[in-house]
């Protein structure tokens, strides 16, 4: 005999298919939904229906979109020659918040993960390559996560993109602003050292007398 009635079991099964939700959490959420007033539960159901009806993926960059192109692709002030490649639409939001990028995006919808059997065919990689020539893309910024999957994805993309004659860049890794050096891990600190920059002198006028003295 099943532990729950069919509709409850059905709900538990559906919830259990969501990422990060195990069987126990699925049961907990299902029973929570049984307890709350109908209108609260229905609001959740309607929100799900609304996104599935109204929100799609941009046919060009695979960012989330309402209507045809996403909000970035639809904006003709954006620079079409620079494309920032990210794993997930949430990363588009993160880069947009910096206010420092004026090009377009390409959302891979994941990262290479050999252990989970996720190879290039499961990602929007062919679609990225197909954009390079028609859109006149001259620089691709690889903005995947600085973890193993993201690094492997960036390395794989660099290998595909370099022969096409585009400039391929990778976002820098370094220390979090506001953090303490002594707490930095070895990999991050090592990368930060490698990515060091020349410090531009703020007051060139002051250096001139010193040089004159020597001469």
């Amino acid at each position, binding site marked *: 005999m099943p532990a729950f009635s069919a509709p409850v079991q059905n709900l538990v099964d559906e919830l259990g298919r969501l*990422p*990060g939700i195990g069987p126990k959490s699925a049961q907990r959420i299902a029973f929570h939904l049984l307890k709350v007033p109908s209108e609260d539960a229905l609001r959740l159901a309607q929100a799900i229906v609304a996104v599935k009806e109204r929100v799609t993926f941009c046919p060009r960059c695979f960012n989330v979109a309402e209507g045809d192109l996403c909000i970035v692709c639809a904006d003709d002030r954006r620079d079409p020659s620079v494309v920032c490649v990210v794993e997930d639409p949430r990363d588009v939001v993160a880069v947009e918040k910096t206010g420092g990028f004026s090009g377009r995006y390409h959302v891979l919808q994941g990262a*290479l*993960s*050999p*252990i*989970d*059997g*996720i*190879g*290039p065919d499961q990602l929007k990689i062919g679609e990225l390559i197909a954009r390079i020539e028609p859109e006149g893309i001259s620089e691709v910024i690889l903005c995947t996560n*600085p*973890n*193993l999957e993201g*690094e*492997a994805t960036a*390395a*794989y993309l660099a*290998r595909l993109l370099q022969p096409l004659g585009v400039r391929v860049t990778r976002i820098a890794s370094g220390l*979090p602003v506001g*953090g303490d050096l002594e*707490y*930095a*891990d*070895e*990999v*991050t600190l*090592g990368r930060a050292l490698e990515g060091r920059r020349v410090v531009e002198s703020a007051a060139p006028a002051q250096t001139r007398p010193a040089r004159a003295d020597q001469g």
Partner: protein
Amino acid sequence: MSHFRDQGVVLRTMRLGEADRIITLVTRNHGKVRAVAKGVRRTSSKFGARLEPFSHVSFMGWQGRGDLDIVSQAEVIDTFRVVREDLDRTSVALSMLEVVDLVSQERHANPPLYVMLVGALGALARQPSPLLAPAFFLKVLALEGSAPVLDACASCGEATPGSLVAFDLLDGGALCTRCRRGRPLSPGALDLLRRVLGGGLAGVLAEPRSSVTDEVASLAIEAIEVHLDRRLRSVRAVPTG
């Protein structure tokens, strides 16, 4: 709750909740450990990049009542950075991690397995070799007590030099001209297989890639897959170039 200290290699990580990950490690003294690293996905995490796959760490954990422990501190012994930053070496390393993940058992110490993995990652960081992962798979089989029979025919015991010409995993190893079944086995491949399992590993790893090393590689992958009774995902996922 009790706390413990150990050394381990991170085999895989899995997202958990908002900012945590479940880290799977193979350790020297506690076998496979699955532990939660809290806040590790935040850029401000004290763990930083220390708990990424391949990382060899010395760590402190809390063992609770459930099957998940908690990582409270981690220090790096080696990050095998050269491996992480080279896609081809990353693929090789991932296939070794996948095998170790499948053969190691939770909280069941298997120090030789841990030592072999650390050694193989170190070798990979120093110098890639077409036979590194295949040799590792064969060594794992030997450690599991399932090494293929190579000194005489696995079926009839025939041991005359030159008589072993085939290899069949269901028979457990090399086969003579009379018992031949399975795939053909070249003399060069037999020699390499014997050297891998007989203490000649260093020489084997120096072999350049050839049809013979390819033969050994495909045989080793097949052998470990038959032993594990499943296909290795990481061997085929990323095309190497």
